[in-house]
């Protein structure tokens, strides 16, 4: 149970930090960030996505390849969840 709680806290913190990157490196207006926002509605261009992924990589020391899950992310929430999964996976594999 403690593990689960720890994981939940970690995830929330990671998600928050990812959204911070959208604001700082993707130059997205924080007021426009809602769960159903899309990259289009946030006016995030492909170059911005690369900058955001680079910043996330530096921040979390991970590499994010573009696979089916990332490519098929329909909205910001999907995108953030997929990135969070990757970061958690990477941390878990390093811890073991």
């Amino acid at each position, binding site marked *: 149970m403690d593990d689960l709680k720890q994981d939940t806290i970690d995830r929330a913190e990671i998600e928050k930090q990812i959204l911070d990157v959208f604001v700082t490196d993707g130059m997205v207006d924080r007021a426009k960030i809602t769960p159903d926002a899309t990259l289009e509605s946030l006016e995030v261009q*492909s170059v911005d996505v690369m900058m955001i992924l680079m910043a996330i990589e530096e921040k979390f020391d991970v590499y994010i390849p*573009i696979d089916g899950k990332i490519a098929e992310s329909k909205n910001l929430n999907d995108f953030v969840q997929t990135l969070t999964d990757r970061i958690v996976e990477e941390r878990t594999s390093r811890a073991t």
Partner: protein
Amino acid sequence: MPHRRVVVTGMGAVSGTGIGVASLWSAARSGQSAVGEIISERALQGHIKIAAQVKNFKPEQYIEPLVMPFCDRFTQIAIAAADEALAQAQFSRKDRLGDRTGVIVGTGVGGYTSIDDLNFTFYVLKSRTHPMTIPRGMSNGAASHICTRYGCTGPSFAVSSACSSANQAIGIGAFFIRTGLIDRAIVGGSEAGLTPTAMRAWENLRVLTPDFCRPFSKERNGMVLGEGAGIFVLEAEEIARARKTEPLAEIAGYGTTSDAKDMVRPDIDGAEKAMRLALVDAGLSPDAIDYVNAHGTGTILNDVVETEALRRVFGSRLPNLPVSSTKPVHGHGLGAAGALELAITIMAMRENVAPPTINFLHPDPNCDLDPVPNHARELPIRAAMSNSFAFGGINACLIVTRTD
């Protein structure tokens, strides 16, 4: 003037699989990947540390000490590939090939290793830089050295169109022969740029896989880089026959287009049109094509776009059309890609064997072609197509046919 036919009379290759077309074809056919940890003098600082690197290549075995200072690595491997191709075509360095022979060699960036050395020496070491950096770095280095080596005094230049460089160099060489401008062309592509800076720059584009390149597979997550050179001797058929050389294949069709859209996103229309133009040029219907060597990088987007373009060209036949990508074996050779893949395509046709797409796990419903998964397949191949689609939106497609 009647339509001159253009044949291939010699092939040479240097790749991660080793020196020679034989090792390239053997690896492609058996699905033996040359991908491994990159060996680099300077530390790779990124996350991606794998590629199909040319290993155990000894340039001094090919190049004289007085010439070596002028040769970047991409030129060195191109010379080794050219020596193999010209030997197969029964030429030696004593034969000065003269005004009727052109040399056209594609490369994405040319002497990248020399430029990387220059920057490191200048900015970091703050010491004396290589005096021949400029001629080493120039994109026409490989073409010009081959000219000098074999006395080719006809037209010579580099084609630089990223990943379509080699296919365009081969296609334009064939067209020059057809029009009667020259009788013979030494063509192909070369690329050697697996430096830490280049790896980092590629990594930033998010197109590299951290583990396995799996073209057309549902689980694919990117491409793997390679380096290498592929060189061909093309000749007008009547000239080759008069020399009593046995042609290996005919360059039957060439088609090339520009998307005029996005710099990095592949485009269905542009890819489709390049394939259609190559078919028209070859005078063949899509049904005549027995095997396609795909661009097949293994990125999510390329493979979906290429499949869709193939569907428009081949229609309902697509699920049964053998289309394989050999990039997981020799890596994405960038400016050399089309040349390495044409050598494989010609060998596939000569041996009637479609090489496999290795690392294949599960079909992707968006890529419903026959990827010849994991194992080579025997089938009659009378005509084959090889695709290259490049950043900048440049598409180039070649079609080869048997000469017997």
